[in-house]
């Protein structure tokens, strides 16, 4: 207990240094910005900023990227409420009741409750990380290679279950991602694998170029096909503070949303999106009186907004303690840490306490900044909504090119960018979700290494994976998840939920 507080103290002293405050501020401003701008998401932004982050201290880099991630949850709700265009996928749910409120002239309270709920959820989630992560890391320190392999398998299966569309395609994308991850020099034998005699691939496929190609440029190509520029009607904001009655009505919803979001965020494959959906569904079932959800009920804004922010933050737990990304943004952060020579996992907390606790504390500071940014300054963000996409996409392309080149000052990485742009475009056209691919790519080399070590210890006996309870547990969980999704009834439900 006392440990936690001394750790939080350490974290605050790191996060409150002038330099880190600036990066935290920059992160949440950028996050809000990309949350507001339709067509640019946190994944794209973090991918574009990866090369810049390499010039920073790892702690500052992570603070910056974390700020973008949870900041985007705030910004996304602004557009969802004011123009019924969710800036982020996780705000889709918010637009149901939020935009109805805006049309009834209650946009202000909707924005207000979204920000307050998010702030509350963010504070709670910060403490959950502070209390929950250390025991988890301690447990993970005892994991051997077999447990790690099973854990990664479980994480990847969870990512598959949550991907939209066909399960088979999602599994195939994971496998393909793992394969892409293996390209380059093999650590054990020194052999160059899958380089096809190209010098540029000797160190493997550059992660930054891959993610910028898929989430940056390929997405621009798809957006340009699907987007029609239309005049967006922006609702007037009005006064921001919800009334006392509204606040009272929302309090249980915020608590439920925060609770549910915090749990769902920790699960591999979880995060903000799932949290928001689940919280809204729960709210419709339990809120009394079950008034008019979908017709501008303020609780329909409060619950998912709290949940997505809580989920966004607790999804840092598996990343920081186990080294397992729960979504593409986390995968990018793992990639960034690895460039700095830090392997995310249970050791981070003991070896680099200032990194872990600094990031946790910065989230709380960042949430405070976000409330200040979002409530009084909402007018500025609304103006940005009018920014046409045709002015934005050349910027994305230019930044991706510069980014791909500056990682190693290597033209080959820009060629990788071009190749995977085509590949990513094809995948999006064929409804193959790229998120599982990115997770597989990050985990590929680690999975192979753990498989190799596990088999080395057991002298080739595959039974090693079912000999310890933890490993069996992960494998059973993975099998269970797959079975559940394959079951027809649940499959239909899942499709309905995704279609909503």
């Amino acid at each position, binding site marked *: 207990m006392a440990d936690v507080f001394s750790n939080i103290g350490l974290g605050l002293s790191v996060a409150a240094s002038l330099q880190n405050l600036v990066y935290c501020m920059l992160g949440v401003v950028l996050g809000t910005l990309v949350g507001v701008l339709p067509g640019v998401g946190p994944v794209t932004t973090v991918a574009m900023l990866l*090369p*810049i982050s390499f*010039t920073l201290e790892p702690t500052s880099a992570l603070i910056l990227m974390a700020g973008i991630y949870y900041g985007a949850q705030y910004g996304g709700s602004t557009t969802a409420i004011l123009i019924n265009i969710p800036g982020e996928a996780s705000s889709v749910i918010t637009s149901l009741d939020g935009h109805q409120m805006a049309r009834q002239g209650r946009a202000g309270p909707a924005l207000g409750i979204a920000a307050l709920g998010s702030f509350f959820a963010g504070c709670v989630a910060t403490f959950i990380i502070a209390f929950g992560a250390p025991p988890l890391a301690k447990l993970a320190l005892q994991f051997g290679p077999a447990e790690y392999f099973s854990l990664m398998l479980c994480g990847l299966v969870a990512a598959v279950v949550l991907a939209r569309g066909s399960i*088979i*395609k999602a*599994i*195939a994308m994971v*496998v*393909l991602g*793992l*394969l892409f991850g*293996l390209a380059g020099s093999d650590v054990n*034998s020194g*052999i160059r*694998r*899958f380089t*096809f005699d190209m010098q540029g691939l000797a160190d493997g496929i550059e992660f930054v170029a891959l993610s910028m190609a898929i989430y940056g*440029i390929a997405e*621009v*190509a798809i957006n*340009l*096909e699907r987007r029609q*520029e239309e005049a967006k009607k922006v609702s007037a904001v009005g006064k921001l503070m919800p009334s006392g009655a509204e606040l009272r009505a929302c309090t249980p919803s915020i608590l439920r949303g925060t609770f549910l979001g915090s749990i769902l965020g920790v699960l591999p494959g979880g995060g903000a999106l799932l949290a928001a959906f689940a919280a809204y569904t729960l709210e419709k079932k339990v809120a009394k009186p079950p008034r008019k959800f979908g017709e501008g009920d303020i609780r329909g804004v409060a619950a998912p907004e709290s949940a997505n922010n809580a989920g966004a933050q607790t999804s840092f737990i598996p990343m920081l303690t186990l080294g397992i990304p729960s979504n593409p943004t986390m995968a990018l952060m793992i990639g960034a840490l690895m460039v700095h020579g830090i392997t995310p996992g249970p050791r981070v907390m003991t070896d680099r306490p200032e990194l872990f606790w600094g990031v946790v504390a910065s989230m709380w500071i960042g949430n405070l900044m976000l409330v200040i940014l979002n409530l009084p300054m909402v007018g500025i963000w609304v103006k940005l909504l009018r920014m046409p*996409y*045709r*002015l934005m*996409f*050349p*910027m994305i*392309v*230019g*930044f991706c*090119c*510069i980014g791909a*080149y*500056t990682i190693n*000052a290597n*033209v080959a990485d*820009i*060629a990788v*960018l*071009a190749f995977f*742009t*085509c590949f990513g*475009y*094809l995948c999006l*056209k*064929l*409804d*193959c979700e790229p998120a599982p691919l990115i997770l597989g790519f990050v985990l590929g080399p680690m999975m*192979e290494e753990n*498989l*190799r070590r596990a*088999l*080395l210890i*057991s*002298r*080739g*006996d*595959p039974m090693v994976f079912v000999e310890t309870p933890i490993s069996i547990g992960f494998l059973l969980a993975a099998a269970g998840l797959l079975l559940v999704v394959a079951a027809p009834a649940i499959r239909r439900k899942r499709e309905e939920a995704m279609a909503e």
Partner: protein
Amino acid sequence: MFIRAPKDFWSGVMFLCFAAVTLVTASGYSMGRGGRMGPGYFPTLLGAVLGLLGLILVLRSFAIRGEAVEKIQWRPLAALVGCVLLFAAMIQPLGLVIALSATTFLASFAGPDWRLREAALLSAGLTIAAVLIFVLGLRLPLPLWPSL
């Protein structure tokens, strides 16, 4: 045609192609034995799984009806990939200023309504911003001008 689910069919074909390349390439690496995994072990395993999944997708697409593939619009894709390649070709010999203004100018062709003045202003503005942020601000080692 017998293909009832074109999206699944072509995804399956794509996965099969990747699986084939993987298996053929990995056959050149030593497999090792269970206790001592060689560099070919894991890729071969993955390649086989990928091939199986691709095959399932292809076969299933003959049986179960699914969505058609949306028509590929070549203009945005070609303009975007083209400008990335252009940047690759120009950055080292010509430097950031020329490469980036050319790239962003060409990129704007990918959009539906192209306007000369706007595209020129935009590319000039982005280039100035990039020089300020990346070279002067972050001191990234980017060549600014052609090296003579």
